[in-house]
């Protein structure tokens, strides 16, 4: 049977992609951020997952407002990256696991989640930056991937409570897959940041630290916030915390913290890294 072995949360902002491309790992501005990742990679090297479910938000590459689904799940043999408008060199494609994707989609729809299934899906920095942080060698793709894209562009966004429930349902779906597979779940984005408006540059360290603590053993406490609360407390883009809640829901009730890091600022963002292992 398939098993979710744990999860990783990480920021996914494009500036990280640029810093990686320019190899700024020892740059004084970036070093405290990048120094958090070797331990996360060590953990992955130890658990050797077969599949990564990557929970992210599309930032206007694959989805436009003509069709904006709340929850989309990829079911493609591979996922292409594109330049996103900035002329960046696209990264090599990511292999999918369409059979597991369909199993999860069937399970979720029968569980009354109204999923958008995507048999072609371009993945943007929300997906590629976490992958590059955790598996830096772009000549290798040691895990198959399942993108889970969540609408954070067009309000109404799904409520934090709904997102935690989606995660729990993903956990049930994976647990019922008959093949022996180890699955890791990435919750990307966050923590506090705001790009737009007179309040641009808003960061809330206290709130971020509270989230990093509560999400381990008390995710329900975070699921009580409304989206409006999250925008107020964590900034307009800080609402990406809902992606972390999906990851957390998928890991099951009991987890243990393997590693964490928090650093302000990277670009406009408070960056939180967390490695959680599911109970055996």
């Amino acid at each position: 049977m398939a098993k979710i072995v744990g999860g990783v949360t990480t920021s996914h902002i494009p500036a990280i992609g640029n810093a990686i491309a320019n190899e700024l790992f020892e740059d004084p501005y970036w070093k405290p951020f990048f120094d958090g990742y070797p331990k996360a990679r060590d953990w992955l090297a130890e658990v050797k997952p077969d599949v990564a479910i990557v929970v992210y938000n599309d930032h206007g590459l694959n989805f436009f407002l003509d069709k904006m689904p709340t929850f989309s799940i990829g079911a493609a043999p591979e996922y292409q990256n594109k330049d996103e408008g900035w002329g960046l060199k696209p990264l090599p494609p990511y292999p999918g696991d369409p059979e597991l994707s369909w199993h999860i989609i069937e399970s979720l729809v029968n569980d009354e989640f109204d999923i958008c299934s995507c048999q072609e899906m371009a993945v943007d920095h929300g997906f590629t930056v976490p992958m590059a942080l955790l598996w830096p060698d772009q000549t290798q793709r040691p895990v198959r991937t399942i993108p889970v894209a969540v609408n954070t562009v067009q309000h109404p966004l799904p409520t934090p409570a709904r997102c935690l429930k989606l995660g729990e349902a993903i956990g049930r779906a994976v647990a019922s897959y008959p093949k022996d597979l180890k699955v890791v779940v990435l919750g990307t984005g966050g923590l506090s940041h705001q790009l737009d408006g007179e309040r641009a540059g808003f960061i809330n360290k206290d709130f971020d630290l509270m989230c990093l603590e509560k999400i381990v053993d008390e995710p329900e406490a975070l699921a009580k916030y409304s989206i409006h609360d999250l925008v107020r407390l964590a900034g307009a883009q800080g609402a990406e915390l809902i992606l972390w809640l999906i990851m957390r829901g998928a890991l099951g009730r009991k987890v243990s913290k393997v590693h964490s890091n928090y650093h302000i600022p990277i670009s406009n963002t408070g960056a939180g890294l967390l490695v959680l292992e599911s109970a055996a």
Partner: protein
Amino acid sequence: MTASHEPIPGTTIFDGRMAMKGYPLNKMCYSFNEAAARQEFLADEDAYCAKFGLTDEQKTAVRERNALALLAAGGNIYYLAKFIGMLGLNVQDIGAQQTGMTVEEFKAKLKAAGN
């Protein structure tokens, strides 16, 4: 329903009301995912804006590269980011512009949030 929430200063929620207002502007910015579209815009901005049916308010905000005006005209930051990026600006340049700071002041403010 969003309207029933207390406003958050300096923050516009991109809800249905804003989406209706900003649709042509956001559709134009979404097109910038393609290199050919970026070239077409840069070759003749006014013609490209007209092609997408931008309002006068939107055209002016585009012409002036004014982030707050683009947002007020219904622009969504995720699509606008493509326009901004294509101009060689990043989110810190735009943060400074929106908050009336220099880029250095804006960066210092972000750094201070870590203390």
